[in-house]
């Protein structure tokens, strides 16, 4: 949900930072990240006092380190609106800092930093005195748990959910474990129900429901919504997914050795597969695609239950639907090389690596970052651009799809470039 309308879409190349100056200024620099609009770069650096901090640079400006420096900094991330956050630590106390403003609460450790699609809320998982909770915008849960994992942040940024241990299991307590000691806590309050295992909690669009995959005993897997398990059990399940428009919930389930796409009470598609995972909805909720293996060792994409004819023999990942849901793209690996396929057709080029395809807003164009012999370029609608970079971020289309923003490094200079696709 990046608002790209007000960005500078004038074709041309702009120098954002001369990275050789950074090497001169700092004895230690980690990898560079570009802000979404490409107008700044940032990296974790070590300063003259042997402390770690974050430095940024914008075109024509000096390198600007944060005023605060720390014993440790990690997980540096630009939010979609361009704010820069990292996890920081001094004297073994950890917290979050956004644009050099640290939270007031500190913890013994923080990790799993999550941002909302709008970038206006930040959550982390936190540990203090061996008690675990989640924190949104510097506000920790009031309840703590002996174990917490798999934290999810709702889209509106107001709620967190995570898998928690509600009955503490010590090592070797296998019979206690079998009775069910895990649940999902939402904003610190766990479901009343516990399960043998719980994984991958997720929020519905309006955050009124939380679903997760569960195992109730060694043979029975299912999906639980707000603590209540689906009526049917399966021999295995993968992570559930809510529709982006209503409370419909789907999940891949396994029965008699085959995988299906199911909802509570039935199958979504008639077809079954040797494998089915990572379902994805179109924005209007009308279409569903998923990564499937129609036969052992052969991978493709199924849209509304119908698999593409083309199959790939090693791997398929990064499935994405265009905003209008009419088109689907993915990254595949076939005979040892990586490629991009759109609407069932593999693009011609083969690469050492390919990244998730990006659709223009109207769905008419697709671009993907690719790598060959350590240098990167972007392929647009199957045709590679005639430039290459030693480091490159994901391309972004202009609102009308006619131009492309590239953010990358060439010969030690970080550029922001607008390419006219016309």
């Amino acid at each position: 949900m990046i608002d790209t309308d007000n960005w500078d879409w004038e074709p041309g190349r702009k120098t954002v930072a001369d990275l050789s100056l950074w090497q001169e200024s700092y004895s230690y620099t980690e990898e560079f990240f570009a802000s979404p609009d490409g107008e700044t770069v940032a990296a974790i650096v070590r300063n003259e006092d042997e402390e770690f901090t974050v430095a940024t640079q914008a075109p024509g400006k000096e390198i600007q380190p944060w005023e605060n420096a720390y014993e440790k900094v990690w997980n540096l991330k630009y939010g979609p609106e361009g704010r820069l956050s990292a996890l920081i630590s001094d004297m073994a106390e950890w917290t979050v800092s956004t644009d050099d403003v640290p939270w007031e609460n500190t913890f013994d450790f923080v990790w799993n930093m999550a941002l909302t699609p709008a970038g206006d809320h930040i959550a982390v998982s936190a540990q203090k005195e061996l008690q675990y909770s989640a924190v949104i915008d510097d506000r920790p849960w009031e309840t703590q748990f002996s174990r917490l994992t798999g934290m999810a942040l709702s889209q509106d940024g107001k709620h967190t959910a995570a898998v928690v241990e509600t009955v503490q299991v010590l090592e070797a307590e296998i019979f206690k474990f079998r009775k069910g000691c895990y649940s999902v806590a939402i904003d610190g309050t766990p479901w009343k129900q516990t399960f043998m295992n719980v994984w991958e909690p997720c929020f519905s669009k309006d955050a009124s429901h939380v679903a997760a995959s569960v195992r109730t005993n060694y043979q029975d897997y299912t999906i639980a919504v707000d603590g209540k398990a689906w009526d049917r059990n399966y021999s295995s399940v993968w992570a559930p997914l809510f529709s982006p428009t209503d409370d419909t919930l789907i999940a891949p389930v396994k029965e008699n050795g085959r995988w299906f796409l199911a909802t509570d009470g039935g199958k979504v598609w008639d077809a079954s597969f040797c494998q089915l995972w990572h379902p994805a909805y179109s924005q209007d909720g009308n279409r569903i695609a998923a990564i499937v293996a129609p036969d052992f060792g052969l991978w493709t994409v199924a849209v509304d239950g119908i698999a593409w004819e083309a199959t790939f023999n090693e791997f398929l990942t990064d499935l994405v639907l265009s905003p209008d849901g009419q088109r689907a793209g993915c990254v595949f690996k076939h005979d040892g090389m990586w490629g991009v396929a759109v609407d069932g057709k593999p693009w011609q080029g083969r690469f050492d690596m390919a990244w998730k395809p990006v659709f223009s807003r109207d769905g008419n164009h697709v671009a993907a970052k690719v790598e060959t012999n350590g240098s990167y370029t972007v392929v647009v609608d199957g045709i590679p651009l005639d430039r290459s970079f030693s480091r490159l971020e994901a391309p972004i289309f202009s609102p009308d799809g006619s131009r492309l923003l590239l953010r990358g490094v060439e010969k030690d200079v970080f550029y922001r470039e607008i390419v006219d696709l016309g």
Partner: protein
Amino acid sequence: MTDSTAVPDKGTDDQGILTGVEQLSPEKIERIINEVLSSETGAKLKVYVDTCVSCGLCSEGCHFYLSRDKDPKFSPAAKVKQTMWEIMRKKGKVSPEFIKKAAVVAYTQCNLCKRCAMYCPFGLDIAYVLSVMRRICHRLGVVPLYIQDTAHSHSVTGNQMWVKDDEWVDTLMWQEEEARDEVPNLRIPLDVEGADTFYSVIGPEPKFRAQLIYQAAMIMTAAGEDWTMPSTPGWDNSDMCMFTGDYEMMERLKKMHFEAATRLKAKRIVMGECGHAFRSVYDMGNRALGWKMPPIPIVHAIEYYHELFSQDKIKIKKKFDRPVTLHDPCNIVRGRGLHEMARSVVNSTCKTFIEMTPNREHNYCCGAGGGVINCGPPFKNARVESTKIKAEQLFAAKAKGAEVVIAPCHNCHGGLEDVIHHYGVDMELKFLGDIIYEIMEIPE
């Protein structure tokens, strides 16, 4: 096969097995067995069991049999007779007491090392048959306590040792900090998207052997590797669920591991010195998920070290000068044929190399494999008694002058430590990584 003679039973005190058996009824046993036989094994198992002509040639292949003064009950064929053969003959109508004994045989009297298969004229894979027995026991809830607990840890944390998400990252940061005393700009790069190499380890490394992560970081840095490790679950490549028979959980674990690497866009996974984890990511787990081969290449530490020396990626100060011998881990030698590469690395790093006999694909298992060591204290004595032949093999290498045993597998380390200690072999154990770290030129 003909009827087996009754086997004297000393009984087990393992609470996982005993309590599990208390909760069984003959009906449940029959139902689960027939479910497994009809939907999971197909004709393969029947052919295996029917083809055996009880010739006994496989016996000489098994270190249990050899270590136990050729006690016929420990021959591979007898282990099948005490388990799946009887189950198939009776079509699943066996008693809880039978399941109790079968669980002890399947989980603790076979390392799934596949040595015996080389001695059988029909190439029968006893390890596979006993894996089916384990699968049945898992579904019945009759699993030795310690390995069951490990499988539970896998299911909750994604790793073998109940390591929490924060403890993992904290350990990596701690190792990085220590290593920076030696190399100021060293980094254990967390979640670096687009790095070529994803490095994965097994649960016990952060828990008990963090120095191995330190050493790996030093080696990767010296080699100029573009590498990363994940801050998320999926970092542990090990898999005790594969050995308890919890295949659904094995699938979940392998999915987590491969997706941790592919999410970071790594081109390959380099893994530490572990044998069973290799079997899980290179054979069992990937295939169970529908991948013929791992979705991105898996490079075992031995292959990685071989790459370092054959491509001159690191320099050594001088060769390791104490005489060494090499233990070939079953899972990467019989399972993948890495024995010559291992020898090449040993020769590149050590001055004097003394072979133990037998060696390469004929090497004896350390007795720990197949999850046997993970069944814990209740079975430790029995396990160590079953490695007498291994001790003799080590003594012979020692008599030829070997002082150090290199074992490029975590489990083998555990097993060999017990062998060395129990039989008073008095040899030092090392990983290849220990030796490389000791002799390499430390980067600036």
